């Protein structure tokens, strides 16, 4: 074959490969977002009502709402412009108004539509009729991958890919339907016991769950953690294999944690139990908020949260779960100018001069000797702070370190621990400088949230 022919053949082969490859990519059935057939009526505070309906038979969102209202026995009053004056006896007014929010396919955020509500309901992932005051959004209705959280059949075999999800499952009293967990899910004891007696399988590690081991548990639904890329991909893979997969949001703040509890409760039809956890968590957070803002709590504390006691430690910048809690409990983050977890230069520590330092570490045990070793072994930069000079260096270790780093149903316990450290005067008690496995004994308001 001469040069020219070979050149042409090469080009033809390359083009054929590209054509076939691209065609395969386009033709391959990519996991699509399921359309939950129905609509949500949202009264606020996680109080939602889902109505199953064949949305293909409703030409407008309004006719879908009329059906939902009728099915639930709610009276619906519309204004002349098609806006909702009142639904289920709750009138649009100063306190809030009824409106239609939708999530578009491929998205996770809400968009508000205005009356008249004449668009086709099947063009959205989900529709929610919510009573909200200005600036508020409806209760979460899609998971982190944009799939609706409603309309699932009853789930009996559930796999959790993260320790936080496992904790949420147990907190909503659904521990008995767990059939698979990741290897880091060793809390609470009932899960560990289930792993030991074989009723709960381990399906891989938190970072790298095994598709085949998950399928081996024959699951009804698999809960993935949106903060792990491998979980998001696993969710797509599982849906491709016709296994329901729901991805919860990265636990960045209390809201996202409560949303995750709500999502899991909805998907597995344990909504009431999830609601209990949410209500209790909110009420404890309210109490803690009041206490940390009371006169006995004193001035806002300038706080540094570090992940190790090294000369140049990783510290919490703005936007982390713990930093958000500082804001909630009348304290400020001395490294709030940064975002996320930051590897800080040692000079910055005396410059920031925190009043209070919290070290979260698994490297130490909760004994006075270990605390002394840590405290006196800190570098000169650490020692050149008011926190060190006043002895306000707190260490959270052992299972307490797990507690404050897992964004699950025990968030109120983590919050109480943190609030206590930040404002011991408001709690009127001596708070140990190093807190480990015995943390539950310190808890007063959230002790009921312990899982077994």
């Amino acid at each position: 074959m001469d040069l020219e022919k070979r050149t042409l053949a090469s080009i033809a082969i390359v083009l054929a490969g590209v054509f076939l490859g691209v065609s395969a990519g386009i033709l391959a059935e990519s996991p699509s977002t399921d359309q939950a057939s129905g609509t949500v009526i949202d009264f606020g505070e996680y109080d939602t009502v889902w109505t199953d309906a064949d949305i293909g038979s409703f030409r407008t969102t309004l006719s879908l709402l009329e059906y939902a209202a009728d099915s639930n026995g709610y009276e619906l009053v519309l204004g002349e412009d098609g806006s909702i004056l009142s639904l289920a006896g709750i009138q649009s007014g100063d306190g809030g108004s009824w409106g239609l929010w939708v999530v578009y396919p491929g998205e996770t955020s809400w968009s508000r539509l205005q009356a008249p509500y004449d668009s086709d309901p099947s063009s959205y992932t989900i529709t929610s009729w919510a009573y909200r005051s200005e600036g508020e959004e409806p209760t979460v209705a899609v998971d982190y991958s944009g799939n609706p959280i409603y309309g699932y059949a009853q789930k009996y075999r559930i796999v959790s890919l993260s320790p936080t999800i496992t904790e949420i499952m147990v907190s909503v009293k659904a521990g008995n339907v767990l059939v698979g967990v990741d290897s880091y899910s060793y809390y609470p004891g009932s899960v560990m016991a289930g792993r030991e007696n074989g009723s709960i399988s381990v399906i891989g590690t938190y970072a790298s769950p095994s598709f085949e081991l998950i399928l081996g548990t024959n699951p009804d639904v698999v809960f993935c953690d949106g903060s792990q890329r491998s979980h998001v991909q696993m969710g797509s893979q599982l849906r491709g294999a016709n296994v329901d997969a729901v991805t919860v949001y990265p636990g960045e703040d209390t809201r996202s944690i409560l949303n995750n509890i709500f999502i899991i409760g909805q998907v597995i039809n344990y909504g009431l139990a999830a609601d209990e956890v949410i209500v209790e968590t909110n009420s404890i957070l309210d109490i803690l908020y009041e206490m940390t803002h009371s006169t006995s709590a004193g001035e806002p504390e300038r706080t540094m949260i570090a992940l190790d006691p090294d000369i140049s430690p990783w510290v919490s910048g703005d936007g982390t779960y713990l930093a958000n809690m500082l804001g909630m409990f009348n304290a400020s983050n001395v490294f709030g100018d940064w975002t996320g977890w930051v590897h800080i230069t040692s000079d910055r520590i005396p410059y920031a001069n925190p009043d209070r330092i919290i070290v979260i570490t698994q490297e130490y045990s909760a004994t006075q000797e270990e605390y002394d070793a840590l405290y006196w072994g800190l570098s000169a930069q650490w020692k050149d702070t008011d926190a060190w000079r006043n002895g306000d260096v707190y260490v959270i270790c052992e299972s307490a370190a797990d507690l404050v780093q897992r964004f699950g149903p025990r968030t109120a316990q983590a919050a109480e621990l943190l609030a206590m450290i930040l404002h011991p005067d408001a709690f009127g008690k001596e708070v140990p400088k190093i807190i480990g496995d015995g943390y539950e004994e310190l808890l007063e308001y959230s002790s009921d949230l312990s899982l077994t």
Partner: protein
Amino acid sequence: MNAKGSMIIAIALLIVVSSLSFAAPASEADDGTSVLIDRGNGDTTWTVADGSSVLETVESAAEGLGMEVSFQSGELTVDGVSSVTVGGTNGGGSFTQEGSTGLTTEASWRVFGWSSGSWVSIDPNDPGAYGSLALAFLPEGVFPTETPDHPNAWTMSRGDSANTGSQDATFSSNENYSVVWTSKGTAHANTLYAGGTVYQKFGIDRDGYASVVAIDGSTGETEWEFRFLSGSNYESSTPLIVGDSIYVATMTGYIYRIPLAEGPGEGNSNVTSFGGAGFSDAVPVDSVVADFDVGTTYDSGFSSMVFYSGAIYVTHSNGMVYCFDLDLNLIWSKLLGASTYLVAPTVYDGMVFTGALDGHLYIIDAYDGSMLVDEKVYQVQYRDKLYGNVGQVAVQRAGDGTYALFFTVSDGLGMSQGSSGLAVYEYAVSGNQIVQRFLSDDLGMFGRYVIPVDTEEYRGAYAVSSDGLTTSLLRVDRSGVLETVTTGLAEIHSPMVLVNGEFLYAISYSSADPIYKLSLSGEILGTASCPSQVRNFNMIPLLVLGDTVFGGTDAGIYCLDGAFTPYVPPSSDRGAPVILVIAGIVGAIILVMAAVYAALRFGKGVEKPFRFIRERFVHYLYGEDYTHNTRNRHRLRFVVAVGAVVTFLSFTLCICIGSTSVNNPVEAYSALFSAISKGGVGLDTLETSVYMSRLPRTIAALAVGIGLSVAGCIYQAIIRNPLVDPYIMGVSSGAGVAAIAVIAFDFTFFGLFSPHSIFITAITACAGGLIAFACTMLLAEKAGGSAINYVLSGVVIGLAFSAVQTIMLTMSGNKLSNALTWLYGSFAEVTWAQVGIILFLSLFLSMVPLLWAKELNLVLLGEDQARQMGLNVRRFNRGMLVLASVLTSVCVAFCGVIGFVGLVIPHLCRMLLGSDHRMVIPASICFGGVMLMLADLLARTGYYGMELPVGAITTVIGIPVFAYLLIKRGRMYDG
């Protein structure tokens, strides 16, 4: 006798024994008449009695069972009762308004004789001789369902109106059970059986139709099917068989009556509903008749029905209890304080016992519908609302006009219930008082059913509870003494059944767990497995006729025949162990070698066959008498043949071995072909594992292995440096920067993709790799465009991108681990949607260098020599480098950075075959794919349940092989 003969005799015996168990009445003997006592509520007994007349025989039979029969003035009286009338004066009762309607129905004791294959109603003084007799408490015109031909029947959800779940069975087989037949459908309603036919209600199909199917009990063939439009998959209420009719209650508010033998007929012409209305004229019961403040309302429609004293009793989720006659005319209705859910009311001694979702226990007069007891038993408050439920009530007479009542309680939230417990009450008829003897909600989670046991050894009730970890069998007696009978059972959701008063049968919720046969002391006497054809979740009880057993799952119903096998605790061993597979392969190789040896030694008379083969083989590859081209052709054939065989074996190994099971090749390939024939939909666990998990990543590994090896081959030839790998042009660093931008910083390619698209990382990484290569090319061309310019530019650009990558990693915070997982390289996230792209691009692009193998050989000699041979070296090099870089970018894009393959495989091939690219490239194609397939196999199975980085595995397994070859051939190899 040979094995085949024994097997035939065993099968014949099995058939004979099975048919006997179907055909023979329970205790028929030659020296008496078999008599059926049918108490008119599903509770029947077969006995044998002697007597000179019908009356005498019946009296004798009843006496044997402790019943007293008298016949005076044409009226037959049993235990003081001759007839009962249900219903009373009109109190305005309707479907929506409680009260009597004025209609009545009457049941009385009657005698039947078995004549010409059917029951005939006869006078007790009838002089005729009958093979069998029946004494039954039935309305006029209704005949017993059980017959001498088919002495076992199961006519209502728990067998009788007292909901005892108690079955009589005849066991005769010692043979291990086998699956007789299966039938597909969603079985949420209990299985019924009459006249040798199984009746099963199935949940809705794709068109929204639920069905009731009559299936021949011995063959599994469908006799008729009744389809009706339903509202949900949970058509869970069980039909009812009375006489020659089956009644089907639906969640949409209808009750249909269908003739048992004829079925629904053309266009459901035989089907009638309330008041005798035809199928299409039927009007349903209203789903809402009252607002309830307490408890949940599930809109589950009618519950399962029971038949008692000539009337049908049923509850509805609208909160009503209804009593109908057999023509479905309403006799009375009674409104409860809340909705009810599916379980049949218990009717016992003229009283209806039922719970509701307000946690109340209700006792209603079965004859006139008047309320006797309405008492709160168990309620739980969530937020501002009260919830509760009382499960199906088991009743036992306790003497002195009192009854012991056993039932479970809960918050009524079904699968999501947060609290439930077990209760024992005592009910005194005088004064209509109920007194709590026991109630605990601290025993784990209970279902809705308990099973009453009333034997000489024990009088009380059994129930299963789960504490979230294990399921226990508990029992509680009338005074409230609780015992744990056994623990450690698999999760059980379906009601148990009591067989012959001595065995409990319980089906595990998951088909992967056993069906248990337990003694009343909790010993596991035997187990069976759900047939693979219908493996799914199990919500309904077994129907045990004896050796023949019917069961059902969410996927269908099945018939087993034979004895349950002794219980063996579950083991994690699945499939054939790897060692056996390897031993099989080795054995096959030895056999082939032995055959070849024998053929050569004895067929052709060769003295030393193996030496002969080796010499012939070496001659074939290196024979001096062949021309250079012939030798090369021979070697190429050899490489391709060996490569194809090794690739096939590795591929087979990869689809046989997984982290959940090791399967033999036959199993794995049949699962694979079965999955393909199903189009990847509705797969079982093994099919899913093979088709969805193992196959795509094996194909991807094969394709990437080929691509990287060929790319490495090209780079090494063009750059003439043995240390060059596919990443020398900076492709991996560029791809890494782009991938980390997506993973850690949510780069969406300027909004082109959604953040969760499965292609965004791949496409961005591919683009990043090509951008890095473009930078390298630009720099190299500016510097003169020689091979060494390319190397230096590639290294520098690679370093630059690596530095950016490191900075980005440092700033990626808690997404660091996500980014690192990608950088390590893995096939864990490959889906079918991506496999096509990788495979086609990699295979086709890898084919191009085959056309240019001669030129690559020339370039390897040096640019000057190549130029002298007429090759436009610069243009050729540029083209090949572009090709190799695109190939590398495609490989990196989907699976991350996988090192070593591209570096070492070409060297391995050169060491083995010399430096001729006509052989090196095909060999690299074969062995690159094999190496990466095996590396991925190790990556996914090496450490239990954990995905290991495949790049590290390739290095770990590659280094020893490489080191060995380097030692053996390094001296004569210069790259």
